[in-house]
């Protein structure tokens, strides 16, 4: 049989030569990858300065805009960020519908994606964190103002997203039902401590236990609060906005 020997002899199977070939191949691939990386970066920068020069035209000409977005996408550039520009160039720029609608769509997506965790109540501070999770220093960050303005734009399309202010915190609400005053109180306390408990609501607001229980139970079944049974005293009800605080 033409097979190689099994057993101890086969340990010599890997000749030094074979290993050297592999090392050479790998260093070759690496240098190719590095070169490509540099080229892509150069091209990305060119795209950004192009966008700076032609921002007006890009936002006013739909056909041009689509083409531009396509080019951005194929180079893994976020056209939304490019259109946003850096803080400096934005001061003079006129209101940019394309940017706010685009950002609005992304915000809507984030609301949908996080709904299973937060029951449809997303704090604006968490939203901006998610939006800027992969922020590139070249473009600067999406600000709270960017986000709020985009939500205003979305309102023209329907009432799916509402901005509610509870305590000192702002939230985006994507559930149809409105929050009653007791629920608002619970969220307000959660904004400070992360959680409430029936005892805490009773002792601090003079609520009867059944009132506190019915409020938090409702909020749990709506997915707005999570239960925690491992406190040494009583069940705690946590606000998922606390996850990324």
């Amino acid at each position, binding site marked *: 049989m033409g097979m190689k020997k099994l057993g101890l002899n086969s340990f010599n199977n890997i000749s030094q030569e074979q290993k050297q070939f592999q090392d050479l191949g790998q260093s070759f691939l690496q240098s190719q990858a590095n070169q490509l990386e540099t080229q892509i970066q150069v091209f990305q920068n060119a795209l950004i300065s192009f966008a700076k020069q032609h921002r007006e035209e890009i936002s006013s000409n739909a056909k041009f805009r689509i083409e531009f977005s396509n080019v951005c996408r194929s180079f893994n550039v976020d056209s939304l960020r490019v259109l946003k520009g850096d803080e400096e160039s934005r001061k003079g720029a006129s209101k940019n519908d394309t940017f706010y609608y685009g950002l609005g769509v992304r915000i809507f997506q984030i609301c949908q994606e996080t709904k299973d965790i937060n029951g449809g109540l997303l704090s604006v501070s968490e939203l901006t964190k998610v939006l800027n999770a992969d922020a590139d220093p070249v473009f600067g960050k999406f600000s709270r103002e960017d986000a709020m303005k985009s939500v205003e734009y979305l309102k023209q399309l329907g009432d799916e997203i509402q901005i509610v202010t509870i305590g000192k915190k702002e939230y985006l609400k994507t559930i149809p039902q409105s929050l009653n005053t007791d629920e608002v109180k619970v969220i307000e306390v959660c904004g400070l401590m992360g959680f409430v408990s029936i005892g805490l609501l009773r002792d601090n607001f003079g609520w009867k236990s059944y009132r506190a229980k019915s409020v938090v139970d409702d909020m749990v079944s709506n997915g707005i609060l999570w*239960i925690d049974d491992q406190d040494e005293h009583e069940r705690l009800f946590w606000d998922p906005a606390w996850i990324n605080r």
Partner: protein
Amino acid sequence: MDNKPPFTYPALYDFPPFFTKQPNSQTWQSQLSNWVKLLLAYCKHNRIWILSPDGTPLTATSNDDDSDNEEFVPSTESIFNNEKIQRSIKPDMSLEILNTMVSQGKAKWKDPKNHKMGIYIYWYSLEAWADMIYDWIENTGQQNSVLTIYEIRKGELGHNQEFHNMDMDMFISVLELMVKKGQAQLIRDEDGSIAGIKVV
């Protein structure tokens, strides 16, 4: 020496209710899928092949460990217990998570009748492992030659590969899958045990 950075836990891991089963079924589904994702990432990072049902590693190997001691245990910490926030999940909840992984093909009990034996965590599917080994053999020009199990699992040439030091029984499952997919032939010793494979 193993000097890779420690595992980065997701923010959810420090959220106390993550360790209590949520009564809202939609929230629970999301909690469950986040646990599955966490277990896969955790086992991949620490190269844990078999996890004990209490969340401690049973079989794990560092990439650089070339000794044949596969039973070395990097830590006695359980993924199901978060010391920092003093929360841990109850056995019935962890069992539900692990069984969900089994039903999704992401894990397999070593012995379904005796969970203490541990559970294989497939941070790559067997299918993906098979393809990875197949591609490696092809890319290194080793097709049509007989490779011993030792050469693939422990050999110097593959020592930067992710399958390096794979748990033996799991490795055999991968080889058997490769045969089933027509990627390889098994070569057996006189006593019938698998001696090596030949990629065709």
